[in-house]
């Protein structure tokens, strides 16, 4: 038992953090909004160079064979920076499930995505509108019984707008050439849903942290009644409540990631737990951060909503809190003797 990060893991996290602090500023995100082009190829290219996009591919494929705990730590930073590009998606939903895909789908993906550097979009009942489909080389589409791959030129689609302008979403109108497979579908679907939950959980924890950091700075700066509003206890307590939620959501993310890396049979439960805790933390972070900003928090001008909008989306897709609750309950009620004090690890 050593529930602690290695120096390497911290180093990866710090590297991506400082990269994003420079390259993914609020101004650059707003620039994408104005140009109606949130997918920034320059930044995508730099992330490829940094080794992030293929970090969890096997070494034989030019990757680093990185484990899910390190990925989660990096994805947390992507949330913190509000990174628009679908890096977390590519890492968790494509690279990390490639070994679960049916053979013909794997071949189709591999011939299109150039060792992780070409983006492949994903559609699933829990996140039905593929993200940045017009910037993708193809689409993996899971419905309720089979897995499909469609190359970009083999389908027609149209844009559908998201409440988060950083997320360019699409819906498919028609597909001309579809590669399909249904073998091992349940196993694949479970693996995908778990990764979707974990990925959004990690993003949410970063987003929640960002919102509380922005709020802590703002309440020091803004004065009323001759004092910084951060000296008022009502304001302090709102932010402290968020800090508590974040603190106890984080280890759930790390444990879930660890479970995936160990192929723990309870990993689906652990990922649901992570998303459940992180969605609650992010929800309170949104509510209390706006409140601590007053009317400024309700403006388009203030950067807070860049992160809040992403958080709302991440709470909604890949299974919201209610859905995770359902998954947890089903597991608890069918195997209650195997849960609790002795079965945390």
């Amino acid at each position, binding site marked *: *038992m*050593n*529930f*602690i*990060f*290695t120096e*390497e*893991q911290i*180093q*990866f996290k710090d*590297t991506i953090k400082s990269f994003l602090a420079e390259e993914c500023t609020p101004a650059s995100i707003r620039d994408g909004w104005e140009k109606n082009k949130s997918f920034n190829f320059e930044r995508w290219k730099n992330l490829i*160079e940094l*080794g992030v996009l293929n*970090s969890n591919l096997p070494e034989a494929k030019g990757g*680093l*064979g*990185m*484990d899910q*705990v*390190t990925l989660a730590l990096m994805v947390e930073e992507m949330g913190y920076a509000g990174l628009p590009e679908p890096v977390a998606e590519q890492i968790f939903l494509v690279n990390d499930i490639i070994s679960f895909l049916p053979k013909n789908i794997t071949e189709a993906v591999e011939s299109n995505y150039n060792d992780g550097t070409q983006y492949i979009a994903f559609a699933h009942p829990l996140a039905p509108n593929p993200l940045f489909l017009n910037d993708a080389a193809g689409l993996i589409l899971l419905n309720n019984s089979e897995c499909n791959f469609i190359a970009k030129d083999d389908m027609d689609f149209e844009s559908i707008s998201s409440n988060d302008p950083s997320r360019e979403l699409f819906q498919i109108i028609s597909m001309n050439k579809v590669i399909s497979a249904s073998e091992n579908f349940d196993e694949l679907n479970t693996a995908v849903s778990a990764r979707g939950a974990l990925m959004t959980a990690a993003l949410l924890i970063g987003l929640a942290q960002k919102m*509380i950091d922005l709020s*802590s700075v703002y*309440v*020091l700066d803004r004065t009323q009644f001759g*004092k*910084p509003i*951060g*000296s008022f*206890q009502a*304001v*302090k*307590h709102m932010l*402290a*409540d968020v*800090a*508590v939620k974040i*603190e*106890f*959501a*984080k*280890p*759930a993310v*790390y*444990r879930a990631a*660890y479970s995936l*890396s*160990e192929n723990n049979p309870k990993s689906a439960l652990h990922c649901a*737990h992570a998303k459940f*805790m992180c969605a609650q933390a992010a929800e309170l972070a949104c509510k209390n951060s706006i409140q601590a900003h007053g009317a400024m928090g309700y403006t388009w001008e203030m950067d807070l909503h860049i992160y809040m909008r992403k958080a709302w989306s991440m709470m909604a897709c890949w299974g919201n809190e209610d859905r995770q*609750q359902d998954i*947890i*309950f089903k597991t*608890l009620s069918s195997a*209650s003797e195997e*849960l*609790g*004090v*002795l079965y*945390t*690890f």
Partner: protein
Amino acid sequence: MHSLKKEMQILKMKINFTNEQNAFRDEVRTWLKSNVPETPLLSLDTKEGFEQHRQWEKTLNQGNWSMVTWPKEYGGRGLDLIEWLIFEEEYYRADAPTRVNQNGVFLLGPTLMEFGTHEQKSKFLNAMATGDHIWAQGWSEPGAGSDMAAIRTTAVLEGDHYKINGQKTWSSRAAYADWTFGLFRTDLDSERHRGLSFILVPLDLPGITVRPIPQLDGEPGFAEIYFDDVKVPVENLLGGDGEGWKIAMATAGFERGLMLRSPARFQQTAAKLLELYLANQDHCSPMIQAKVVEAWAQSESYALSIYHTASKMLAGGSIGSESSLGKIFWSELDHMMHQTALKILGASAELSQESQNDAAKWIKGFMFSYAGPIYAGTNEIQKNIIAERLLGLPR
């Protein structure tokens, strides 16, 4: 740009138990199985129950289980925090008796380890382990609750002893305890945090009057302690004269952070809540189900967080103001779980007599869960600490 692609070996974190740890768990389990009394002890807030619980402390000590993290010379096993957490898990799983000496073993013990002299350690730790000294905690005074620095009880150095005058209150276990540790003002001209000292006081000294205070459940779980020219030998001073605040903060850190409320307690409550819900599911609404899941999720998170903290401490880290986060989390969780249990119980939630569905136990726990957000520093005070020390907001 610094590239990630350099030669590095990816070492993984390890969050499962080693074979040695599993063997240790088995050892604890086996011992508890043959030693935990079959009939529950009487309440530790009655004279007779208190002595039964003292006896249990002695039994624990005979098995070397008083405090597994202490060095062997003081009655411990020299084990680490992870093993302590394992011990606690088994302890709660076995429904073993409440530790009547928790003020001693969980709070004063680690404080002595850090600040005590060799003589103090061997005298007090051993007597604590054997259950011969059951400890009370004496911080609060009528005028010093949340504002602990307003302490006015004085201890004046006169030759080889301190002379103590004043009053402590809300002192848990003091009704029947043997000793109390507390903060006293040794520099009469001092104010606030300065001039306080940490002194260990036997409760049978002349000049001490203990007046038990019945709690919400009607039993004297805490007491007032009056000091009237009480003479305490100077060797009972822990740390330096005037260093009391610093030492007390360390004790409070152990209390909030890790020791007082190990996760197993809440995981066990969550498991029992689930069991209660599954047996009564038919007449409950989906809202209750959501709470039951939340109870599991939060107690699970609390456990993960504590293992994370314990691992960090083993790697040389320390807990600071983060302990305030945990204190809020477990106390609110405990209250939520008991409140949910009462909702499941329906009309029997008012029965204080033993019944089939354990209503009385839930009610007792429910009442006590109201105290969690108050003792060990109220949750409002913890939020102030979080905002000021962790988030950097102005005082």
